[in-house]
């Protein structure tokens, strides 16, 4: 695949050009509308699945031709059940007794979103530099391993311990990003393949570590590490009744840092130049190979922090499933956020909300969390292909309109 390197570019933004007369047109042509319609289309696809799986709809459809309204109302009921459950599980619980109970779902969503934002930021930096890094999963795992190890094996005072655990997460993720970056720079090995393979290497490494006695909780044979020390935990943000912790704030700070890096620093300029056209960047005197290594290290660092957040803030112990599917979800987060920090924060919160709604979805609507995967992937597919969305919703093609006005 090395011939195709540098062909992977994050989609570019084409915003409102400032002409007041074309305000309506620019709304119709804007990416914002495409994003909105893509989310809408994904919810429709999700609704189709919900209807397909719903038993009362299946029962009613057996006599569809004698009483079609039964089927339709059953279908409508199933869909509203699902999406109301999703709303209550991720944003606001209407049935809670207290205010804190009502907003708990929202804080859960933010907790889920923190690692997604971290890892999504890392992937976004890579995409903008023309590197398609599928290895966030492995980088998250390595970050989690290191953070967890520092967390339970060392016993240090408050502050120092957390700082050291976070540095551990950074080093773990950075190492797993450094390897594909170095291989790409020195041998031209395609980062997609190397990072996919490193994901599995990281997964088995974690499984092996957790099979060692010294990494298991004392007196237990489960592949689960001892609980990390309280001094290494991210402190909780809103008190102990909420799961939300300072890791989320750290993710927001990281988003600001990435914005500064990409938009205001020389490094960021180099990254973007290499992403836009590596040959031109070389001619302009930029070192493309060093840039590839740097970008991958930064991407790994951020993904490692995602793993650290999972261990130090949310799970508080290392398990084989610590990374969940954060690394893969983060790809969709970065694509949805168009690799821009602000977009990634928004997309991370959206997908964190989808994830957080899982238990409620299961209990209230009897639906498995897997529907979230479908919604996520459909959103990203549609966003990646704006012409398809325009075709589905009969929107004008921006290029044609512009030719007319020119």
């Amino acid at each position, binding site marked *: 695949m*090395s011939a195709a390197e540098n062909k*992977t570019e994050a989609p570019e933004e084409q915003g409102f050009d400032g002409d007041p007369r074309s305000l309506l047109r620019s709304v119709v042509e804007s990416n914002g509308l495409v994003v909105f319609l893509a989310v809408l289309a994904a919810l429709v696809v999700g609704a189709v699945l919900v209807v397909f799986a719903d038993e009362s709809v299946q029962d009613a459809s057996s006599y569809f031709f004698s009483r079609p309204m039964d089927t339709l109302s059953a279908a409508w009921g199933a869909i509203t059940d699902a999406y109301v459950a999703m709303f209550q599980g991720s944003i606001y619980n209407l049935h809670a007794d207290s205010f804190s109970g009502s907003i708990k779902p929202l804080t859960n969503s933010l907790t889920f979103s923190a690692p997604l934002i971290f890892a999504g930021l890392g992937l976004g930096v890579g995409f903008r530099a023309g590197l398609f890094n*599928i290895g966030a999963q492995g980088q998250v795992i390595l970050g989690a391993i290191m953070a967890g190890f520092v967390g339970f094996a060392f016993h240090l005072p408050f502050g120092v311990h957390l700082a050291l655990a976070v540095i551990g997460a950074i080093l773990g993720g950075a190492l797993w990003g450094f390897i594909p970056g170095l*291989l790409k720079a020195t041998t031209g090995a395609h980062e997609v393949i190397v990072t996919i*393979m490193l994901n599995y290497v990281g997964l088995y490494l974690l499984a*092996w570590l957790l099979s060692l006695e010294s990494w298991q909780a004392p007196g237990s044979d489960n592949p689960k590490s001892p609980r990390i020390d309280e001094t290494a935990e991210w402190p909780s943000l809103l008190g102990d009744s909420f799961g939300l912790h300072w890791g989320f704030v750290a993710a927001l700070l990281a988003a600001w840092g990435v914005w500064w890096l990409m938009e205001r620093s020389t490094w960021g300029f180099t990254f973007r130049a290499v992403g836009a056209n590596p040959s031109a960047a070389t001619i302009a005197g930029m070192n493309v190979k060093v840039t590839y290594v740097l970008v991958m290290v930064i991407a790994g660092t951020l993904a490692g922090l995602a793993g650290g957040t999972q261990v130090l803030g949310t799970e508080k112990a290392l398990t084989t499933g610590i990374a969940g599917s954060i690394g893969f979800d983060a*790809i969709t987060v970065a694509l949805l956020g168009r690799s821009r920090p602000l977009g990634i924060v928004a997309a991370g919160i959206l997908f964190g909300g989808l994830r957080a709604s899982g238990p409620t979805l299961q209990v209230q609507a009897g639906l498995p969390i*897997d529907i979230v995967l479908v919604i996520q992937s459909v959103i990203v597919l549609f966003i990646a292909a704006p012409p398809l969305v325009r075709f589905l919703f009969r929107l004008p093609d921006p290029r044609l309109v512009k030719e007319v006005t020119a």
Partner: protein
Amino acid sequence: MTTVSASVHTGPATSLRSLLSQWKAVIGYAVIALVSLIAFGLGTESGVSTSFTVSQTGDALQVPAFSVSSQPVTLTLSVILFALAGYQVWAQLRREPVGVWLPIAFGLAFMGALLTWSGAGRENTNVALTGMLVSGVFLAVPLVFGAMAGTLCERSGVVNIAIEGQLLGGAFLAVVVASVTDNAYIGMAAAPIAGALVGALLALFAVRYWVDQIVVGVVLNVLVIGITSFLFSTVLSDNPEFNQAGAQIGAQGGVAMQSLPIPLLSEIPILGPVFFDQNALVYLMYVIVIVFQVMLFKSRWGLRVRAVGEHPKAADTVGIKVNRTRVRNTILGGAIAGLGGAFFTVASGLSFSKEMTSGKGYIALAAMILGRWNPKGALLAALLFGFADSLRIQLGVIGSSIPSEFLAMLPYLATIFAVAGLVGKSRPPAAENIPYKK
């Protein structure tokens, strides 16, 4: 790892780097041989023995179990490894290409040393050679189908990361159709439909809408995992009769995919059970590999496909429909990967479970790269991964001191070495992942 050709001298070897790149194959072989000598040769206690069984119960021609004294065997095999590395040096000095037999012989000798070492001194455990090879071929089946699908797509210029999703979709549809029709073979025949659907989506986004093919592939995998897991947890768990294991399908009067021994050929010791006493899907795999090897490199269709993948503009100039070729190949590739998905359910006699392909699609991708976008090479690489997998299982049975997690990492590490060019140069089709815009 299929062919390790001697590096061609383009100029005087001046720097350390070029020296390294010329002799990396030799260095790699020497390091592995040294590991074998120290770990297996010297690491085996002297005076103990390893016992092997060859015949399985029910074989017509019984070869008795035999045992060998461990240390002499591991030492001999390590010396053979050094000899093979030496042959590579000799051939490279004479600038002669080395055949594919060398890495294969090297791998076999290394596996032999590993098995002898791990079975050493264990009184009641036999190393079941034939059983290991049989399961190696069987475990390679989805990898071969997946790698074949990847080869077909990438030769026409479309990167197929969605192999994982195509396998999973095929596995799902196969078991549902087999359960409904009570016939495993109809299930197997339905599996390609699911794969082709995923392939069609890939073609739609990659060829029609020019979306980055890697993005589409990754996202399609997530989509298929989501849909199959959702339907598994809802429709299939409400109606278990839609998701039956192969044995149950057979019990209700249908036909489970049992192994169909080929007369005479299956009687050959070792080779017979390994290659000719498998089920219909495995035989179909042989046919598909041969057909595509011939078609891709000897037919007009194959020439056109390769032209589209290497230089679409040139192909277009001589009147080949670039995008139509790509769409057809992507759908065909998806169908083949879908067929391979039948392995997980109807061919293995298992019912469907969530994410049951567990990354096999990505290993198939690795097999395709190791096989250098060649059906023949992909088959060999997939067999290598299959054997590595069955070796891992066998060592788990014997109780080896190597953690199974490290053995499980091997295919992935081998792939990293391969793409980094440490095992030999691999060059993908030139127009891969570049949409063709007129």
